[in-house]
C-alpha cells in the first residue's frame, strides 16, 4: 500500500549504516543521495561505495520495477517467483531501507488476482511502498484496480509528491492518454500540478522524480521516452540535485545532464534487449542460468553533505 506522508523523524534510525546497504549485493540499484550531482556506481565500484559509506549514513530507499506479475512466457515462466526472490533479498539486508518505490508494471494484465499476488509478495518486505503505474496496470476494463489499490490520496491518474529524509519525491504518471505515434505522456493537467508542486521550494532541496516510462528519450523507435518530459524538466531547472528514476525498459541505463541524473532500473520479471539490438522491444529469452543476472532491483541512499549521489545496480544473482 502507498503512504504519502513520510516524516523525517520517523526515519531517524533508518538513516544509518549505509555500509551494510552498500555492500549488500544481489538485488538492485543502491542509491546514495548526498546533495550533489548524483552518479551511478557500477558493481566494480561497490568497494569504493562501501568505503564512502563508512561515513555517517543517510536515508536508504529501494526501487523495484516491472514485476509483471502474471507473466509466464518463455522469457520467465515464473515472474512471481523472481519477485519473491527480490523481496527475499531485501529482507536479508542487514539494515532495512526506509521505504520502497515501485516504478510500475506491477501486474502483467491488470487482473485482480495479479495485483493480489503482487501485494502478497511485496508486503513481505514490510516496507511502505510508493507506487506509480505502468501501462500494464491500466488494462482492466474499467481502469479502476490501480486507482483503488494504489492511488488513494493521489491526483489525476495517480500522481503525487511526498517528503522523506530531506528529499522531495515526486511520483508521475506517463502511461495514460497515449497518442498514436507518440511516446509516454504526462499531459497538461499533470504538468500544471508539477509546476505548482515545485514552485516556492528551496532550490537546495534534493528532488527525486519517479515514473514508469523514461523521462528522457532513450530510444524513440521503441517508444522509450516521454513526449512532454522537457516541460517537466524545465520546472526542475535550478534545483541543485535532481534524480529521475524510471523502469519500463527492463535494463539499467543512465544519463547525467547538468544536475539531473536519469536512471532506469532492472525488472524483476524479464529482460528486454538493448536499444536497436533486436527487431523490437519485448521479453528477451536468455539462458535460464543467466536470467537472474539480468533481473534485479535498486537501492538508494541519501546523505546530506557534499558527496554525490551514488547508485548501485545489483542483479538478483551474479
Amino acid at each position, binding site marked *: 500500500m502507498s503512504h504519502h506522508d513520510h516524516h523525517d523523524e520517523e526515519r531517524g534510525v533508518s538513516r544509518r549504516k549505509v555500509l551494510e546497504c552498500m555492500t549488500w549485493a544481489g538485488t538492485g540499484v543502491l542509491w546514495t543521495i548526498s546533495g550533489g550531482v548524483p552518479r551511478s556506481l557500477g558493481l566494480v565500484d561497490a568497494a569504493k561505495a562501501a568505503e564512502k559509506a563508512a561515513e555517517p549514513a543517510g536515508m536508504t530507499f529501494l526501487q523495484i520495477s516491472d514485476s509483471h506479475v502474471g507473466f509466464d512466457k518463455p522469457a520467465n515462466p515464473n515472474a512471481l517467483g523472481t519477485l519473491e526472490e527480490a523481496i527475499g533479498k531485501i529482507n536479508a539486508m542487514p539494515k532495512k531501507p526506509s521505504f520502497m518505490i515501485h516504478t510500475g508494471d506491477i501486474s*502483467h494484465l491488470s487482473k485482480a488476482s495479479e495485483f493480489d499476488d503482487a501485494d502478497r509478495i511485496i508486503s513481505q518486505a514490510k516496507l511502505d511502498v510508493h507506487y506509480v503505474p505502468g501501462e500494464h496496470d491500466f*488494462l482492466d*476494463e474499467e481502469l479502476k484496480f490501480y486507482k483503488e489499490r494504489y492511488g488513494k490520496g493521489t491526483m489525476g491518474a495517480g500522481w503525487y509528491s511526498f517528503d522523506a529524509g530531506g528529499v522531495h519525491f515526486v511520483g508521475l504518471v506517463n502511461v495514460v492518454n497515449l497518442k498514436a505515434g507518440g511516446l509516454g505522456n504526462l499531459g497538461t493537467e499533470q504538468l500544471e500540478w508539477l509546476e505548482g508542486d515545485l514552485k516556492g521550494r528551496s532550490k537546495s532541496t534534493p528532488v527525486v522524480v519517479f515514473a514508469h516510462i523514461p523521462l528522457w528519450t532513450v530510444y*524513440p*523507435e521503441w*517508444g522509450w521516452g516521454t513526449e512532454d518530459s522537457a516541460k517537466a524538466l524545465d520546472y526542475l531547472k535550478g534545483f541543485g540535485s535532481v534524480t529521475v528514476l524510471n523502469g519500463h525498459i527492463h535494463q539499467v541505463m543512465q544519463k547525467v545532464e547538468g544536475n539531473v541524473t536519469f536512471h532506469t532500473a532492472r525488472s524483476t520479471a524479464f529482460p528486454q534487449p538493448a536499444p536497436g539490438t533486436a527487431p*523490437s*522491444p*519485448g521479453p528477451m529469452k536468455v539462458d535460464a542460468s543467466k536470467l537472474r543476472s539480468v533481473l534485479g532491483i535498486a537501492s538508494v541512499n541519501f546523505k546530506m553533505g557534499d558527496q554525490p549521489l551514488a547508485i548501485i545496480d545489483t542483479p538478483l544473482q551474479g
Partner: protein
Amino acid sequence: MTLTALRSLGASLAVAAALLLQPGAPAHAETITVSIDNFTFTPTELKVKVGDTVTWTNHDDIPHAIVSAGKFRSKTMDTDDSFSFTFAAAGDYKYFCSLHPHMTGMIKVE
C-alpha cells in the same frame, strides 16, 4: 444431375446470395488478417472493401491493444488473442496500440 435439380440448386444459391447480400454490400465480404509480430502490424497498411472484416492476431509475448480513435477499440490482446472488426463504411482508419503508441497502422476501406 437433372435439369430440374440444377434449376433447384440455382434457385437455392440465388436465395442464399440474396440473404447474404445486404443492399450496398459487396459481392464477397472477406476476412483479412493483420498479424502483430515484433511490435509491428503486418501489413502496416491494408486496403479492404466495405463489408470486409479485419482480424488482428497478437503473436508477441507481450499484450497489445488496438485503438482507432472514435471508430473501434479492442480489449487487451494477450499472446495469440485476436480482435476482429467489420468495416461498414468507406474511409481511412488510422489505428495504434494503446500500450505501445509507436505501433501504428492504417486500414483503407473503399
